[in-house]
């Protein structure tokens, strides 16, 4: 077996040792680099259609190609980037460490989920490549990421392949969710009670519940769609007695909770960053913890707000509208608690904190504009305009992706053992913040003025807005490239990072080496204070160290 007390990156060598590893840290890293690769791909598609939208006329690519671009941007960013970003990439690395566990509960299933992810991703990318090279062969995927019928039920075979890819990716998500739930329940270190868990864990727990509960419904929906295409089963086809709106119900029953699969992990990272870089006990711990669960529960009963103009009954729309407003409460609780945490804290504006502040501003804008869309009367006007596009980019990208990148910068020293150039990191956060607002703030304006989303050509009235938005997209590119450069540079310069550079109090910083050893901890960590008790003296104890002192740990019946 060898020595488990060596650095996990050097414990075993060679490509094969990575491909067959069951170490959650290595699996997390492989997820991370896969996700970053797909982030680049999805970003390239976004830049391509932003370039097309620079002028009112359709002149750079054909209309069909444009449809493919925005579909692929959506599918890649949702299924291959945002959903796995924090849970599968950062969560896999951090969660067992924060729990004081040697690994997740089912390490082999964890590896399986990575392979399923790769298979699904390969199918998605394969469909893109084949469809682009020769559209006559399998057709293109031009349905938008939502696969609405009838666009999707009488498309080419490419749609079938893409749907199958999303179906397969769902299983990867389910496995990760199951694994995390069991790990959180069963593998906590002695003394790590539920209310001593870092809030990262609480939010990931809520996310996992949604992943396990909602993804199967997406699975069966996509399966029905595949059957619709392959054997013409007619469930969504009005010619055969079916109902196309039923697809929307099924789809959003998954996909509305899924947007909380996307945002809750962002909130998970946010709680860690705000507390650590304010060096202050997180304000309202229990409220933040339970607000995650509240969001998870409410997320299941709001899906109808996507169908206000799909012929849903007025009564249903009113109920869904009301329930949608409820989401604002737990989200508001979180924002206020983070702000209150920063109040009179000793704030240090390190790179991860700047990304966290990006989240705070952008998510607040995204969340508040969500209320415009949840209101029936305004939604009729704003539905399917750029207002919607701007809203969900503020939430998904301004929310989740900002904390994802912030989380990468925060845990990077732990993952790799090296520190990065702080000035480059800060610069990237600021440039991304500027680029983001230039790109998307203007879209609220043009959406409110009536510019519909997904249009290839548009009237000249909107051209000035689109020019600004496209310029913003390229500023974003510069910002992300600087961030990538800072991280790559750190791997080349190899400046050793200390074990706990941020003076954090959660187990992954206090009880592990940088980078951690293969089995995470030397000795079994014991937790005797909460994760944000910055006022208490730092105590680093393990079962073994207590034993050596002659004060063995008293296990209580929990």
């Amino acid at each position, binding site marked *: 077996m060898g020595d488990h007390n060596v650095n996990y990156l050097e414990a075993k060598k060679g490509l094969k040792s990575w491909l067959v590893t069951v170490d959650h840290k290595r699996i997390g890293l492989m997820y991370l680099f896969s996700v970053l690769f797909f982030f680049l791909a999805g970003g390239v598609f976004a830049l391509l259609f932003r370039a097309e939208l620079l002028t009112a006329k359709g002149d750079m690519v054909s209309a069909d190609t444009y449809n493919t671009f925005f579909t692929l941007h959506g599918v890649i960013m949702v299924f291959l980037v945002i959903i796995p970003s924090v849970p599968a990439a950062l969560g896999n690395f951090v969660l067992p460490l924060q729990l004081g566990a040697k690994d997740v509960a*089912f390490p082999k299933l964890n590896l399986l989920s990575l392979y399923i992810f790769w298979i699904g991703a390969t199918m998605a990318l394969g469909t893109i490549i084949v469809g682009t090279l020769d559209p006559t062969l399998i057709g293109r995927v031009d349905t938008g990421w939502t696969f609405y019928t009838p666009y999707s039920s009488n498309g080419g075979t490419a749609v079938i392949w893409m749907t199958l890819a999303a179906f397969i990716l769902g299983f990867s998500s389910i496995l990760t969710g199951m694994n995390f739930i069991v790990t959180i329940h069963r593998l906590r270190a002695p003394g790590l009670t539920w209310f001593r868990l870092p809030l990262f864990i609480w939010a990931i727990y809520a996310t996992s519940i949604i992943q396990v509960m909602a993804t199967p419904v997406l699975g069966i929906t996509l399966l029905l769609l595949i059957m619709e295409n392959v054997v013409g*089963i007619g469930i969504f086809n009005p010619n055969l007695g079916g109902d196309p709106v039923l697809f929307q119900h099924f789809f959003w029953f998954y996909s509305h909770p899924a947007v909380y699969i996307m945002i809750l992990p962002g909130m998970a990272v946010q709680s860690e960053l705000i507390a650590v870089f304010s060096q202050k006990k997180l304000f309202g711990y229990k409220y933040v913890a339970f607000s995650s669960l509240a969001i998870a529960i409410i997320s299941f009963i709001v899906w109808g707000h996507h169908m206000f103009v799909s012929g849903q009954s007025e009564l249903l729309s009113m109920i869904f509208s009301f329930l949608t407003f409820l989401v604002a409460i737990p989200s508001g609780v979180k924002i206020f608690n983070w702000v209150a945490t920063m109040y009179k804290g000793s704030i240090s504006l390190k790179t991860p904190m700047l990304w966290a502040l990006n989240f705070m501003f952008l998510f607040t804008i995204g969340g508040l504009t969500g209320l415009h869309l949840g209101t029936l009367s305004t939604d009729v006007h704003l539905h399917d305009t750029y207002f919607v596009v701007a809203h969900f980019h503020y939430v998904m990208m301004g929310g989740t992706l900002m904390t994802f990148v912030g989380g990468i910068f925060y845990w990077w020293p732990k993952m790799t053992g090296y520190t990065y150039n702080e000035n480059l990191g800060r610069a990237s956060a600021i440039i991304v913040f500027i680029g983001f607002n230039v790109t998307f703030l203007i879209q609220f304006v043009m959406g409110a003025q009536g510019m519909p989303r997904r249009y290839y050509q548009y009237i000249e009235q909107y051209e000035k807005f689109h020019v600004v938005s496209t310029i913003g997209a390229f500023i974003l590119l510069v910002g992300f490239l600087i961030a990538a450069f800072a991280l790559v540079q750190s791997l080349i310069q190899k400046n050793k990072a200390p074990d706990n550079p941020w003076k954090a109090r959660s187990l992954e910083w206090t009880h592990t080496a940088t980078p951690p050893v293969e089995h995470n901890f030397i000795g079994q960590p014991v937790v005797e204070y909460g994760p944000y008790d910055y006022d208490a003296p730092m105590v680093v104890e393990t079962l073994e160290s207590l034993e050596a002192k002659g004060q063995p740990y008293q296990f209580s019946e929990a």
Partner: protein
Amino acid sequence: MGTGIATTGKFPLSHHFTNVEQQVESNKFGMWLFLATEVLIFGGLFCAYIVYRYLHPEIFVDAHHFLDKKMGLINTIVLLTSSLTVALAIRAAQTNEQKWIKIHLVTTIICAGIFMCIKYMEYSHKFHVGLLPGEYFRAASEQFREPHNVQIFFGIYFLMTGLHGIHVVIGMVLLSVMLVKASKGKFGPHYYGPLELSGLYWHLVDLIWIFLFPLLYLIH
């Protein structure tokens, strides 16, 4: 039922668990979560069933006469029996009756096989007379009050029973693996976790059929 905690014999403890109880409990918890996802997968189809039965009640009444109640009943009895035998196999492991673990597992797998044979006969009859889903439907239409929509029922019928059938086959594979392990003498009072988890899965497959049978075959 006990928790399967080792008292004697060798228990294969994985590296990342601190004790046997933690491993046994984690595995069981994981399985229950998995079963929840299975219920939700079928839940989508049950929703489709409810929506279309609500929209077209007469179709469901007319079309269900074309399902063979007798075959459905036999299959229900066969599956219920298999659920009993798989539970007895687990019991035999707990009491260390090695021979009976194998006998009960073999009986379970045979029952599953009978179920699939009967399902095959039902399916081939429907294929023969053209009671098929969606655009392939070509049975004589005068037998139905609303003939242009009747394929919806058969779409749902084939999807639900088809997905269930796939689960039966997966169950047969799973139980066969357990049989191989049992014949190597791996199971006993000290260790029967995988056997118990396969049993849980099998009970779920059985349970789903218990709902499918009345919903599809016994409509009034």
